[in-house]
């Protein structure tokens, strides 16, 4: 193959694919039984990191950036004047195999602009995956994009070769979608999602009876939402995230702060800063939902539509529910321990194991590694020394903010917030 041409294509098509945040290579367990190439581990591996601090785990590229759609938020939209390119199927296969053999990547993340129609595009994506699996004996990770509107039959095929499938919902509200992507229909996104969910359930059930049933998309499916493009609230975002987790058994929902790439009067201006902090708070909320046993209505509701930017969502919840505190570290159950600000799930399990031997005091807690500066106001332990003053949520928040050092400090001005 002509090296320079490949390099140019790779540059264009990697550049176009980078706005997809998902890079997980975890959640699948594929062995390498016949001494072929590669396997996947449940943990996933990040092989490198870009200068923006995101991980590079997969060869993340578009098959082509030619596209028939004209979505306002997308760099590869039809009306955008950029260089276009397309890979041949064999070229993607060669790149993947050769990068993989050198331990650069965990596998392939293949997406595509939509050319001709949804089914034609989906079919090409599937043939890359099929070739890798059947001809190259490749057992590494494959993440395919489900093309909105692709037929059920193709989606069934896709899951047999891919570890993960994903459809990006991109805009969390239907009204926002109408505004920014007028040619796309909400149902087109949902259709492949539904099919994949049903197939996963069906294959899992069959596997219980017949052990040799092939695995179908073992790493499940995921989706992504752009935030800060249509003026939606955090509540809108997290409620739809919770909906997709529940209804479509999503493994992950990703949140991607909108990066202004195009001038368009429907969108924030080009100079708008990427809402990195907001993104961070949304991920924290996501974690609270998935691992800490919070329900979405506890964190966001009609009286609390947006997350606080200056404190994390768990602390914010605790300040709104001060009547539940202080909690006794040596007696509280797991659910309540997980709700204490400054204590993570790792510490929770250490506390539970350690307290079967003795009552824990501050030194123990410190050694275990909880964030005392936040937790101290919410707990009691085997010590007479604990925080007794009854503070209002507001003054407690300021007290904590003063003692903590956040990398986001530059975004806030303590003085101003006193009067807001």
């Amino acid at each position, binding site marked *: 193959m002509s090296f320079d041409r490949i390099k140019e294509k790779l540059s264009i098509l990697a550049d176009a694919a980078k706005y997809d945040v998902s890079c997980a290579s975890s959640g699948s367990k594929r062995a390498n039984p016949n001494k072929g190439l590669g396997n996947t581990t449940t943990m996933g591996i*990040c092989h490198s990191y870009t*200068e923006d601090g995101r991980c590079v785990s997969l060869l993340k590229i578009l098959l082509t950036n030619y596209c028939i759609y004209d979505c306002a938020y997308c760099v590869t939209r039809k009306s955008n004047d950029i260089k276009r390119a397309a890979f041949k199927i064999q070229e993607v296969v060669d790149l993947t195999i050769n*990068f993989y053999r050198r331990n650069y990547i965990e596998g392939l993340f293949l997406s595509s602009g939509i050319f001709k129609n949804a089914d034609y595009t989906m079919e090409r994506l599937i043939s890359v995956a099929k070739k890798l699996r059947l001809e190259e004996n490749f057992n590494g990770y494959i993440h395919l994009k489900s093309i909105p509107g692709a037929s059920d039959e193709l989606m069934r095929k896709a899951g047999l070769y891919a570890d993960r499938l994903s459809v990006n919902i991109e805009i969390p509200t239907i009204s926002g979608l109408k505004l920014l992507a007028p040619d796309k229909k909400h149902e087109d996104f949902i259709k492949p999602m539904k099919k994949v969910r049903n197939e996963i359930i069906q294959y899992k059930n069959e596997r219980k009876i017949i052990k040799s049933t092939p695995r179908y998309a073992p790493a499940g499916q995921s989706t992504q939402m752009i935030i800060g493009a249509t003026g939606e609230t955090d509540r809108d975002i997290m409620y739809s995230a919770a909906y997709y987790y529940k209804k479509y058994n999503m493994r992950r929902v990703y949140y991607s702060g909108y990066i202004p790439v195009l001038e368009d009067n429907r969108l924030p201006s080009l100079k708008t800063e990427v809402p990195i902090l907001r993104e961070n708070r949304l991920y924290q909320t996501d974690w609270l939902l998935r691992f800490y046993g919070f329900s979405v209505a506890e964190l966001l509701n009609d009286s609390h539509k947006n997350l606080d930017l200056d404190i994390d969502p768990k602390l914010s919840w605790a300040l709104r529910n001060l009547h539940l505190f202080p909690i006794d570290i040596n007696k509280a159950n797991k659910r309540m321990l997980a709700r204490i600000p400054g204590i993570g799930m790792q510490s929770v399990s250490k506390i539970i194991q350690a307290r079967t031997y*003795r009552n824990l005091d501050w030194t123990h807690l410190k050694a275990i590694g909880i964030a005392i500066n936040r937790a101290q106001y919410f707990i009691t332990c085997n010590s007479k020394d604990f925080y007794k003053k009854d503070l209002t949520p507001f003054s407690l928040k300021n007290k904590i903010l003063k003692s903590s050092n956040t990398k986001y400090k530059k975004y806030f001005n303590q003085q101003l917030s006193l009067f807001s």
Partner: protein
Amino acid sequence: MNPQTILLYDGSFDGFLCCIFEVYSKKITAPIIRKEDQTHNQLFTITEQVQTLENNAQRVWKAFKKKTTKTEQNNFFKAFLSEIKGVENTLLNYTQYIFKKANDKQHIDFSNKDILKINQVARMVEREKHRMEAFVRFQLTQDGIYTSSAAPDFNVLPLIIHHFKDRYADQKWLIYDMRRKYGIYYNLKIVDVITFENVFEINNQTIKRKSLDEEIDFQKLWTAYYKNVNIKSRKNSKLHHQHIPKRYWKYLTEKNNI
């Protein structure tokens, strides 16, 4: 008062287990366990060289296994591989605690400082192992071996054999630890430990000289890819350095522009 005993061993895991055996068989109180190549000039001590006998090592390990879970055994081994000064004594205290306590595999006492320490160190080693699985970069040489050199903080090569053997089952590969001067080599059947007399045989320049043109092309492609996935408006150098500390850059293809 009895003078303190210093037990010296050859640096191997079995050797260390033999020290524990010695502590019990000779009823030595509060010894210091050290590798034989670590210098020591202490007054009022008795120095004893412990011989590595597989049988003794096996006996200690068997007894230890009886009272611990798989995770605890792994953590014990990982903490040993950390080569942190004095870790042998922490491990000894821990072993004595394990041998004394009742048979209870249910809970781990994280309020015991030795246990907590071992857990923390094991996590550091685990992290380094994971980093090696991520940051090893193979270069295909003319003799058809995917070759890589590295300098991990801890002695993690024994921990990564399994991973690389499973994953790259159909290619010959070699990973060399420049700091500890040994490597692991997979010949399509088994993994062997190898050493080179001269380290120059395995450093980055030599590997590059021995590689094919095709190899250089793929390195260029990878570097091009790496550059293009970066989003400039989200630059975050602190996070970047946190994820790949600079000491690893030397061995990363994408960080050594060609």
